[in-house]
Structures are given as C-alpha cells and as structure tokens.
C-alpha cells in the first residue's frame, strides 16, 4: 500500500462524508449514520484485537459502557468539561484493560475470552445496581452535548460531521498501525507465535498493548454515544451487544479496517430497514456467527476476497504483479 493509493482512499472517504452531509435531508439519516459511525469505532478496535491479534473479547460492551458512563456521570452529575471526561473515560478503560489483560494474556488460548466474558457481565451488573452513581436500569439523562469552541454539537448533522471525522482519523491511525512495525509483528504473531518470538517480538506485551488499544477505541465510542443521545442506560451494554460486535467484525472480515466499516454498517442498518427483523434478530445474528465461522473463518468479506485473490493468483500462473 503506497502513499499515493492511501491518499486516494482518504480523500474519497472525506468527500463521501461531506457529500452526504450536504445532500441528506432529515435527522433520521444522520442519526442512523451516527450510530453506524459509533459502532464502526467499536468494531475497528475489536478487529485489531481479533483479526490481527488473534484474541477474542466477549465483553467489549463493558469498555463501551465504561467510556459512556464515565462521560455521562462526570458531565451530567459533576459538571466536568466533556473533553476532560472523555479523557477520564479513556484512562479508566485503558487501566481496566491493563489489569484484566496482564493475568489473562499470560495464559494460552481461551482465557482472555473467558475473562472478558466475566468482566463484561460484572460491569453490566454494576451499572444496573450502583443506582446512586449510574441511575440504575432507568439510566442517566441530562448528559450535555459536546462543544467545539462556540459550536454546540447538538444536532444530528453536526454530530455526524464530528463523529465521522473522528472515525476517519481513527481509521487512518489503524491503517497506519497495521502497516507499521508493530502491525507486522501483530500479524506475524497471529500466524506463528513461536516464529515471532524467535524474531524478538515480545508477544505478551504486544497482545496486551492491542487489547488496551481496542479498549480505548471502545471507550471513545462510548463517550461519543453518551453525548449523542444525551441519555444512556445499562441495556445498551449487555452481553448480547458484545456478541453483536463480534458478529460485525466477522461480517466485515477479520483483519480488515474497511471491512469493519462495512460490518458495522450492515448490521446497524439491517435491523432498521426490516422492522420485522427485530423478532428474528437474535436468530439471524447467531446464524451469521456460525455460518461465517464454519465456512469463512476469516470473515465474510475477507473470505470472499481471499477466494477471489487466490483464484486470480492461480489464473495468472502463480505470479502476482508488484
């Protein structure tokens, strides 16, 4: 991926964002896009962890919730500046991820999955029970909007521009990361941990860093979520939501930055488009998870791309043009 190509992708992205901002009528579409954007933030982080790092988090909703509630509580209850609150959320999520990751990543195989599973549910229960702090099941209202200087981000369209700019920056950072020294080390680790270690890659430290990094993305998404809806409730941060995030990663393709956007988009929009879908939502998510993992374990889009690339490689007599 050389800089020229990269530049094109980002300008296309920026152009698309601006075009939509100008042409879409009605708050509904912008709200929908805001949710897609927030979900995409979550999914990109999770994808770095799952697709590149080869680990799985079954509790990412917890970091989403930690970010959201830190922002919400600090701004609504204590009147703290929203940007400071956002940073506080990042610090909380990051350190929690550190504390969780250090013991969990020392062990092999399933253990991070199990630890994040347990952690996710504990956070959900605490959010429900610590009513004095979090407002309990009925949630926390009165969250102020973000402000960029004099401009208050209190309309869907303004939020859309802000969220998607943030998303664009995050996507760029993530794409950079994948192509960097540690990104390579991460992909190497995924393919052969022993070989990576034999090349001086500290695999434990790397896994931990990626886990924390993905928790930070989730926390950022949570804070944005709180300031978008101006209201949050524990029902948004369930185990089922963590599963949905994993499904989005798989749909878009593991180890694919842009696939994350696709996965988030499709699985956010689909329930909206098909209102009858709601009853079948659970079944369909489960079916997608199973089908994709059985037949295209690298994710739907990535799996199809791989098949296409492999066929093209074979057709060209075994040499790929530089």
């Amino acid at each position, binding site marked *: 991926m050389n800089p020229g190509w990269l530049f094109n992708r980002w300008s296309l992205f920026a152009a698309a964002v601006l075009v939509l901002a100008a042409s879409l009528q009605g708050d509904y579409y912008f709200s929908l896009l805001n949710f897609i954007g927030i979900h995409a933030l979550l999914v990109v982080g999770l994808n770095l962890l799952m697709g590149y790092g080869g680990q799985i988090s079954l509790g990412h909703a917890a970091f989403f919730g930690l970010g959201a509630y830190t922002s919400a509580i600090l701004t609504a209850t204590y009147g703290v500046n929203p940007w400071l609150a956002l940073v506080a959320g990042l610090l909380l999520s990051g350190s929690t991820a550190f504390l969780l990751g250090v013991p969990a990543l020392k062990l092999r195989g399933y253990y991070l999955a199990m630890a994040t599973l347990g952690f996710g549910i504990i956070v959900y229960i605490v959010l429900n029970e610590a009513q004095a702090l979090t407002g309990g099941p009925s949630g926390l209202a009165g969250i102020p909007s973000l402000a960029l200087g004099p401009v208050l981000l209190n309309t869907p369209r303004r939020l859309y521009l802000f969220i998607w700019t943030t998303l664009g920056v995050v996507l760029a950072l993530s794409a950079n990361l994948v192509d960097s020294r540690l990104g390579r080390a991460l992909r190497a680790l995924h393919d052969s941990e022993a*070989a990576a270690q034999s090349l001086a890659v500290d695999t434990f430290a790397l896994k931990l860093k990626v886990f924390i990094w993905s928790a930070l993305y989730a926390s950022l998404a949570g804070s944005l979520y709180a300031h978008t809806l101006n209201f949050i409730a524990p029902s948004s941060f369930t185990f089922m939501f963590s599963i949905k995030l994993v499904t989005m990663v798989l749909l878009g393709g593991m*180890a694919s930055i842009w696939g994350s956007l696709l996965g988030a988009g499709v699985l956010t929009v689909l329930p909206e488009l098909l209102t009858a879908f709601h009853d079948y939502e659970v079944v369909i998510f489960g079916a997608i998870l199973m089908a994709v993992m059985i037949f295209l374990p690298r994710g739907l889009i990535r799996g199809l791309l791989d098949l296409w690339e492999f066929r093209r490689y074979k057709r060209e007599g075994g040499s790929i043009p530089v």
Partner: protein
Amino acid sequence: MEDVSLSVRPGAIQAIIGPNGAGKTTLFHLVTGFLTPQAGRIVFAGQEIQGRPPHAIAALGIARTFQLVQLFDHMTVLENAMVGRHRLSRAGLLSGALRFPWTRTEEKAIREEALEALEFVGLADRAQQPAAALPLGLKRLLEIARGYASRPTLLLLDEPASGLDAGETDRLREMILALREQGITVLLVEHDMALTMEVAEEIAVLNYGRLIAEGPPRAIQKHPEVIAAYLGTDWQA
C-alpha cells in the same frame, strides 16, 4: 538431555547430529528459550541466558529456523523478511499509528534491509508473492532470510535440508557457506550427512540426550560410538 556440555566457536559452522529423538531440537529449544533447563547454564556473549523468554534471547542476537517451517503465511515474502528487522527497529504503537517522520524513515530502512536479506538468499524477485505460495525449498530459504535480516550473531538452523531435492540442497549449502562469510556463527542440526560433512567444521553427536562425540567431520565419521548409534552395534566398520 543429560550432561551435555557444548561450546560453539564464533564464526564457525558447527553441526549437531544424532538419531531421531536424540534431543537435537530440544537443544535448540533450550538455547533459544522455548524450553528452560532444569539444571546447567547457557552462556551467550558472556551472559547467562537460560530461563529467559524466547524474545529476550532473540533480542541478544540469536536467530533460528524451525524444523517445520514457521512462516507468516498471511504475509508476503518481503513482509516476512521485514519482521526479521524487528529487533533492530524501534517504532511502537503510537509512532506506528501517527507515522512520525522518523518512523517513516525507519520503515524505509526496514524495507531496504529486508530486500537485501531477500537478495542474499535469492528471493528478491518474489518479494510481493504470498509466502504461503512458495515451494518448500524456497520457504526454507525465506526462513533463513528472515533470520538473517535480524543481523544475528548466532543462527540456528533446524534441519534446513529436510524435504529438499538435490538442487535445493545445493542452494542451501551455498547459503550456509555465505552466512559464514558474513561472520555469522551457524549451528546446524541436520540428517543430511553429505551436506553436514561438507559445510561443518565441528560436529557434535547426540544420542538419547547425551553427547557421545565431538570433533571435525573426518573424526566423527570414524568414531565407533557414532557409527553404533546410527547403525547399531552389530555393524562391522
């Protein structure tokens, strides 16, 4: 492994041979930190390294290949070699994401050095191919290139000739000799006796986890215990 005492002369090509299950790969795992010895010391460049994790030992300048080739299948040939530069580069998570100028310079250097390593083994023209698509002989060369890219002081080759045909073995032999030209100490585990006798200056023979002979190739060839180990005690010299 029991009672194995071995020293490797810097700049030499040394081989470790022995029947299957003699403990040769175990020795490699011990040296590179994948296994920890219950007793004894492993000293490298004046430091004791036993018990340290593999990545820390690799960072000191010991590289290795594996008996069953462990390439990074989802990466290209060039990217595999670039991972070899890991210990000689610094960019971290933040610098990787933000792409500072110094990071970009380092990336370019990594790419160039990796290409050089590929040229050394003769794989530069396949730089953009997926590593998984290479035939076995070239995969082994890529593993060597990857290790070479890390500018090791000591390179451990674990049965590099396994599964190679005559032409590929010739290429491998040239490669090993070229490594010595570069000043790299090579420790070789091999079953291919012809190759071993040709390249090795010193040979150590293991059997059932014990060291049974040590010396230059010609002496080893005539050593009665070695012959017995390979062919059984009934064989007449």
